[in-house]
């Protein structure tokens, strides 16, 4: 399996990233607490993306609920979809109950391990403990060997997330959110939005380098200030809990969700990032 050797492309805006994610792609997304490229998620809805297959690394929240509600998703593999304190993810819940999307249930360490298998170039990776779960029965891609379950490697077509910084060399900084490094290593292409551009090359800075994902893995970056909103970027801005709660209420009905999209996603540049 040959992978494109990346020279990071500097894209004009998050819309360009959304155009680079083809319909039907296996798209890996982080949980709500781990640097979600929400502006690209909104742009995917605006460009009417279809049949996306989402991979939660290892769980999903608002991003998946929006994409599912907007009809962009055919299939989800994840350990959970939830809005955390704001409760169930209403569009996900309804789509599964009405059989509108296919769901492959997993468990967090299985997804981490499946991505690590791809990092290492091995077809399976063993995991202990989980063989008693009904999850295993529903997964014909996993193999049971005594007390171990061999989890099949996953190679996402595209990893998508947000970063605190990108630099002139195309490196991105995600700090301690190292699951994003694993998913970038394992994916064919990686697209990243960033809060701020840093001059120079962060790999030349000993203090910054450990939080960096090297440009080697980064296919394209686009500037998106407050691009994770209404989710947060640790140390820069917090989660807009009021907005997420508002969303959870609105999205309980198809009509409420449609109105939410109209106001916050489809209307061009209606202040999506209040101060």
């Amino acid at each position: 399996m040959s992978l494109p050797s990346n020279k990071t492309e500097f894209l004009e805006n998050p819309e360009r990233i959304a155009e680079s994610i083809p319909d039907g792609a296996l798209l890996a997304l982080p949980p709500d607490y781990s640097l979600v490229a929400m502006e690209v998620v909104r742009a995917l809805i605006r460009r009417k993306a279809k049949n996306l297959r989402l991979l939660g690394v290892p769980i999903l929240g608002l991003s998946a609920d929006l994409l599912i509600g907007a009809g962009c998703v055919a299939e989800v593999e994840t350990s959970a979809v939830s809005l955390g304190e704001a409760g169930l993810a209403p569009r996900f819940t309804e789509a599964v109950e009405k059989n509108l999307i296919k769901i492959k249930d997993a468990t967090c360490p299985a997804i981490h391990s499946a991505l690590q298998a791809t990092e290492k170039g091995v077809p399976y990776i063993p995991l202990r403990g989980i063989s008693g779960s009904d999850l295993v029965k529903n997964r014909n891609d996993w193999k049971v060997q005594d007390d171990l379950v061999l989890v099949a490697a996953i190679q996402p077509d595209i990893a998508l997330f947000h970063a605190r910084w990108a630099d002139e060399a195309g490196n991105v900084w995600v700090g301690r959110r190292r699951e994003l490094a694993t998913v970038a290593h394992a994916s064919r292409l990686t697209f990243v939005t960033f809060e701020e551009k840093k001059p120079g090359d962060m790999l030349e800075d000993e203090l910054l380098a450990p939080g960096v994902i090297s440009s080697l893995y980064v296919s394209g970056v686009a500037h998106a200030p407050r691009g994770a909103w209404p989710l947060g970027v640790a140390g820069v801005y917090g989660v807009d809990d009021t907005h997420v709660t508002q969303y959870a209420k609105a999205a309980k009905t198809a009509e409420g969700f449609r109105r939410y999209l109209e106001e916050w996603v489809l209307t061009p540049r209606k202040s999506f990032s209040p101060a």
Partner: protein
Amino acid sequence: MGSYAKEELLACVIARLLGGARHAAIGASSPIPATGAFLHRQADPAFCVSLQQRRETNPFTEGSRELFDLAGQGRIDVFFLGGAQIDGAANINLVQADGKRFPGSFGSAYMYPVVPRVILFREEHSLRVLVKKVDFVSARGNPAALVTGKALFSWQRDRRCFRLESVHPGSSAEDVRTNTGFDYDLSSSFGATPEPTREEVRILREKVSPQIKRDYPEFAARVWKG
């Protein structure tokens, strides 16, 4: 006895189950277990509490997989799990029941059998939650205890059966019987769950609530009125 919130009582019940533990990890959406763990930490400062989903100053620097790697090595000895359904064999279901979809299994399938002291916690104590047999086994294991809004159960590993240890103020043995869908034994020392002491309530409000507020702002605002 001063007045206290139901959540404070449950946090105290949980804190009493943590004696001798070194390291508890707290997963998604578990404000009451987190409150119990931070309360216990006031009594035992060496006790370590790691919040998986902490927004700022997250304890894990290898991303969210580090929690599972730590557990796999035995570096975590307490974890909390809930369930849309919990059955009499201590199986939990976080996926689906009666045509209803729940969020999903999270890390439970792994953490339940791997972590030595798993405490099952579900505030709702009803026939739809505590069932004879779950519709889907997200995870199976041997819990240390089951704490609900009405009662505390221990788990008898040899008999694979719960034992009712105490009922919380406001409930009764009959109430628990009526609202539990599985069979369980009755402890010979069965009694009422002790209420939080004045000192526990003071520590919860003065020391613990500011820590909880950072990660569970809505919960903290509800219980401690901001």
